[in-house]
């Protein structure tokens, strides 16, 4: 019991020191050289999203389903006073429809939200760790790059490609509808 108490005390002291140190240190100059990524899981497979392509991360948003010819469209949801379409990222990546995706990200360029199942966390990596996918399309239709962190390799989902594909589907469905 004393060992556990000592460990907890040490932990608390460590946390306190780290917290204090974070406020004591000067801002790092190397921040620009670091790429911020969001580690997620789609269909139990690990992926990462560039934070520069993301306008916001949300959880447990109520999604209102809408009748639509686009099967990937899960519905619409409210984000900071704006109603945005929500697409199922799993279906967009070629997986079956997720049962109940909890997490959502809003794409920075175009106000579109993507729903996925799990959010592993916020990770930072150096830009050198991001390399192009050797075999294009081998890890998914929207994967252009991969992040290597030791033995672990996470595909980087190109939200621009996803957005392009959504647009393409929307325009095609609109033409088919007009025809």
């Amino acid at each position, binding site marked *: 019991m004393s060992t556990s108490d000592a460990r907890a005390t040490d932990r608390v002291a460590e*946390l306190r020191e*780290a917290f204090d140190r974070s406020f004591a240190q000067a801002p790092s100059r190397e921040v620009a050289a670091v790429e911020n990524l969001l580690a997620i899981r789609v269909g139990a497979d690990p992926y990462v999203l560039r*934070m*520069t392509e993301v306008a916001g*991360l949300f*959880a447990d948003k109520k999604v209102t389903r809408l009748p639509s010819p686009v099967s990937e469209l899960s519905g619409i949801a409210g984000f900071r006073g704006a109603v945005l379409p929500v697409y199922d990222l799993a279906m967009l990546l070629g997986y079956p429809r997720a049962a109940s995706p909890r997490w959502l990200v809003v794409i920075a360029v175009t106000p579109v939200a993507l729903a996925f199942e799990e959010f592993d966390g916020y990770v930072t990596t150096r830009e050198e760790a991001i390399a192009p996918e050797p075999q294009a399309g081998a890890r998914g239709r929207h994967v252009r790059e991969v992040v290597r962190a030791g033995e672990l390799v996470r595909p980087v989902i190109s939200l621009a490609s996803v957005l392009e594909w959504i647009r393409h589907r929307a325009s095609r469905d609109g033409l088919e509808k007009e025809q």
Partner: protein
Amino acid sequence: MTRHWTFGQKVGAGFAVTVALAVTIGVVAVIALRSVVASKDRVIDVDAQLLIDAQALQTAREQKAVGIRAFLLTRDEQYITAMQAARAAIARALESLRANVYTDEGRRLLDGIEQAEREHQQGVDQVIALRRTDAALDTVNGSFEALDPIGDRLSNSIESFVAREQQLLRQARQAASDTASWATIAVTVMALGLVFLAVATAVVLTRTLSRQVGTAVGQVQSSSAELQAAATQQATGSKEQATAMSEISTTISELLATSRQITESAQRVAQIAEQTAAAARSGDETVETAHESIAGIRRQVDLIVNHMLELGKKSQQIGAVLEIVSELAEQTNILAINATIEAAGAGEAGKRFAVVADEIRKLADRVAGSAKEIRELIDDVRSAVNTTVMATETGSKAVDAGSKQFGHVAVSFKQIADLVTTTTEAAREIELSTKQQMTAVEQVNVAIGNVAQASKETEASSGQTQQTASQLALLSKDLLRLVRPQVSV
């Protein structure tokens, strides 16, 4: 029917026939003797007496004549007296003769004699009277001689009577002799018949008895052989019986020793049962105390369960709070990430804010990690609490079961105490019964000894019987040889 007669009956019948014939012969002989005796008596008593009386009559006649002649010669009166005495004798003789004579001829002759004597006496009286006178002797002799014809007639009559009586005597003697001869012949014939019949009876009896005795002796011989064999078997059986009795006696002795051991064991069992009863009573009290202790344990376990349940509830509350903390950490993390995004969008101005947001995110990550650890700890605590509660409930159930078991144990101890009491009584009964059994076994042992002795005596007796049977067989052979020499072996 005679075949069914016994030897005694047959021999008795033979002797009866013989005795009957002997009796008949005796009767006939007696009758003949009596007839002969009667004839002789008649000859002696009647005919001889008649002859004697006749001769006495003749003698008295001569004495009378002598007296008369003497008186006539001497004139002496004493001769008269003698003559009168002789005449009285004649009268007695005539009277005797008349009493005994049994023929008419004899009576007629007696009448002639009496008549002649009376006439002669009358003439004699006249002569005597003449003699008393002074008459001449010659005259007297002449008168007396004149009486001679009468005297001769008297003498002739007497002689005739004597001659007749002599003849009758001879005839009677001859008749008696004839009777005696007839009786002799009859007795002789009957004696011969008796001898013949006795011989025939003896022959018949001999043949019959020889045949039957021979058959019986043969049967006795075979029976002797069978008896000998039976005696041999009996001797063998008696020997085996004696051996068996000896073994039984040994077994009974062992049984007696076993009974003694059983008695001692029963005594020990009774003692142990009493000790067990005391231990059972002590155990009952101990069980009662233990039951009370278990009840206390039960109450403590209930308290522990309640505390554990309370601890579980507290853990759930901690979990709920931790859930909130986790939720807050997650929300903080999201906010930090979004702040980072917004700071990145703010350009250079947002870099400092980005640092703060990153620190907030890190803090949120640490809080989330700590919350996760706390959750794991809480889960461990809840799992431990659940395990403890379950274990405690299991222990409670075990305590309940133990309490029930102790109740059963208490009941069992009471039953054990009762059973031990019963066992004690049974052990005492066993002890008593075993003692009685031991006494009975001792008596049986004595009886077996007597039986063994009797078996030995029976064996000896069987040997004696065997010897007797052998002797009987030899005796029967000898007897058969005596009875049937032609078939004797």
